[in-house]
């Protein structure tokens, strides 16, 4: 068994607000193996983005209270001083964000921005850094990269900006790439190009990838493992087949049932009733219980733990396994 690249244990992130503490991430533990693609799926407010910001060390420690440990290649990132963290960020862990317009600086040429991050981390000449920036733009399939490098972000289309972000993120050959909703602002055709590109480059650069998304459809094709988050916790994790063909948590069922499917004609969708809870007053017991059609008295009293059922397929739900299997067989539209 190889060493995990990233090991997050019992991560808590709490923001103090006037209305009380917001527990954005509430006890999350997971690992990322070298070269793995992990999908992190959840709705707005599930804590998926805050977890990735915590890994990147991008949460302001004055505003956010971060506890637990984030061990990356044997080092706990949470105990590192800021200047040490800067060496890791961008060099060994890099991130691409949802909106490529706001994450590129509008006043600087795209090539210069990519070169800047190379110069920041490596002792190379300006000319060499620039040459590498152009090369990277070519690697992410931007046509005429030498001319494009001289242009400003507003001269790029949305898809090309996201390619430029990927070029920047991979220019230092990081071990872990965190992609936070990388395609949400893009058209489906461009989305497919970008996801395909990340998938190809992942092998070429031997990088582990964490894709954060709200859409279970997006990650189906590319992920090895998936974890589903709800109200700051992981409620189910497993390999891709576990999650899509034998999901065990009612929230995952709800997510899968509410997506319209191209290959089926359903008269009605089955949405999850109600709304996600406020992270300030989480309900007692299981936080999904108030929206869960299968909840019973124990769910309201006790908080379920994330427990493995077989291998590494785990879920946080009190329903007996036979009942879950019955639901998968009789009520879900998944194929075996």
């Amino acid at each position: 068994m190889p060493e995990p690249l990233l090991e997050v244990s019992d991560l808590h992130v709490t923001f103090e607000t006037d209305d009380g503490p917001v527990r954005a991430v509430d006890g999350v533990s997971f690992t990322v193996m070298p070269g793995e693609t992990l999908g992190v799926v959840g709705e707005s407010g599930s804590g998926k983005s805050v977890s990735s910001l915590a890994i990147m060390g991008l949460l302001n420690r004055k505003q956010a209270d971060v506890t637990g440990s984030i061990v990356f290649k044997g080092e706990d990132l949470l105990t590192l001083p800021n200047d040490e963290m800067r060496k890791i960020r961008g060099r060994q862990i890099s991130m691409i964000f949802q909106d490529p317009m706001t994450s590129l600086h509008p006043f600087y040429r795209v090539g210069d921005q990519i070169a800047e991050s190379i110069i920041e981390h490596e002792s190379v000449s300006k000319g060499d850094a620039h040459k590498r920036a152009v090369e990277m733009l070519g690697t992410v399939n931007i046509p005429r990269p030498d001319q494009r490098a001289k242009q400003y972000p507003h001269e790029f289309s949305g898809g090309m900006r996201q390619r430029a972000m990927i070029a920047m993120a991979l220019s230092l050959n990081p071990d872990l790439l965190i992609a936070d909703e990388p395609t949400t602002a893009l058209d489906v055709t461009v989305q497919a190009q970008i996801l395909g590109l990340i998938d190809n480059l992942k092998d070429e650069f031997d990088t582990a990838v964490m894709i954060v998304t709200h859409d279970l459809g997006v990650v189906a094709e590319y992920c090895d493992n998936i974890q589903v988050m709800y109200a700051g916790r992981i409620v189910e994790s497993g390999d891709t087949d576990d999650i899509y063909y034998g999901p065990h948590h009612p929230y995952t069922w709800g997510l899968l049932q509410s997506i319209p499917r191209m290959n089926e004609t359903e008269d009605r969708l089955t949405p999850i009733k109600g709304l996600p809870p406020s992270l300030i007053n989480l309900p007692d017991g299981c936080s999904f219980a108030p929206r869960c059609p299968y909840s019973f008295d124990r769910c309201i009293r006790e908080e379920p733990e994330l427990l493995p059922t077989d291998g590494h397929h785990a879920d946080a739900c009190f329903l007996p396994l036979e009942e879950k299997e019955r639901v998968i067989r009789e009520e879900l539209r998944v194929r075996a």
Partner: protein
Amino acid sequence: MSAQTEAGAVPTSADRGTPLIRLTGVKKYFPVTQGLLIQHHVGDVHAVDGVDLEVYPGETVGLVGETGCGKSTLARVIMRLYDATEGTIEFDGRDITKLRRGELRELRRDMQMVFQDPYASLNPRKTVGSIVGEPFALHGTVEKNKRKPAVQELMELVGLNPEHYNRYPHEFSGGQRQRIGVARSLALRPRLIVADEPVSALDVSVQAQILNLLGDLQGEFNLTYLFIAHDLSVVKHVSDRVAVMYLGRIVETADGATLYRHPLHPYTGALLSAVPIPDPKLARERKHIVLEGDVPSPIDPPSGCRFHPRCPKTKQLARDAGLSEDSDPKCRNDDPRLEPFEDGQLAACHYPLEEPIIGSSAD
């Protein structure tokens, strides 16, 4: 909403009566100007460039396409928020292309719009009661003292708590705000609702709630929908017929199941091969048609078939024929028209696709 239970038995235009909306050769150009003081007209953005479309009463027509294909502009032209540059728009047999303001206001009772962004489309300084009740005040359809119960009835209808009558939009979640938008659009009991990306800004679980709501309301009020979205799976779910738009034109129309089973236009094929499918095996099995490049500029659309610079099929044909150019001459020079195929499917392509994109192993 989804009448696909009788898929294949799409009625012909003869037995569906008068279309509620009929567009003939509709074009909308936006002028491009240059110059500081004196604005010179240097060109046009061909946002909508010759669209023929019929929407029958009680039907849901889905309009799908990428950003910039002109789908939202078309919706606004139908709503008469923009004036068409050319072509005619008929509503229930009556030409509405050149109505005056007073007549237009009358018309708006019959056609209403639901917008994409539930944050931007509601006035933050007004209560839900006055937002939903405003159409009553504007059109004088409900007397002042009866407005509150009428609004509360609408709120109940769309699944909002009528006691929240005096709350402001910021007190509601995205899905609830979209319900407010739907309630407002229903206030005048319209016959047509144009929904422009009504669920794109919502989380999936909430998206399903709104789609179901729209379906229920259609049954209850015999509504006709023009449903615009970039997500083909959502469009296919809600629509009786789907129209695919590319660069200001409709390139293919068919019922959702046919479109999925056998798309004819290579662009539709590319959209299908890119749609996220929550089924890993099926997603990996399907054919991948990767489109190169971006959508060309609508200021100077390509000659011949507008899709030819990105079309994988014409490139294949040119390669097979050993041509030096990378497209077939017919695609480059001849603008294809929408032609009928089997089952009422229409496509504008010289060399339609022969095989399905997504395998049938899942069915």
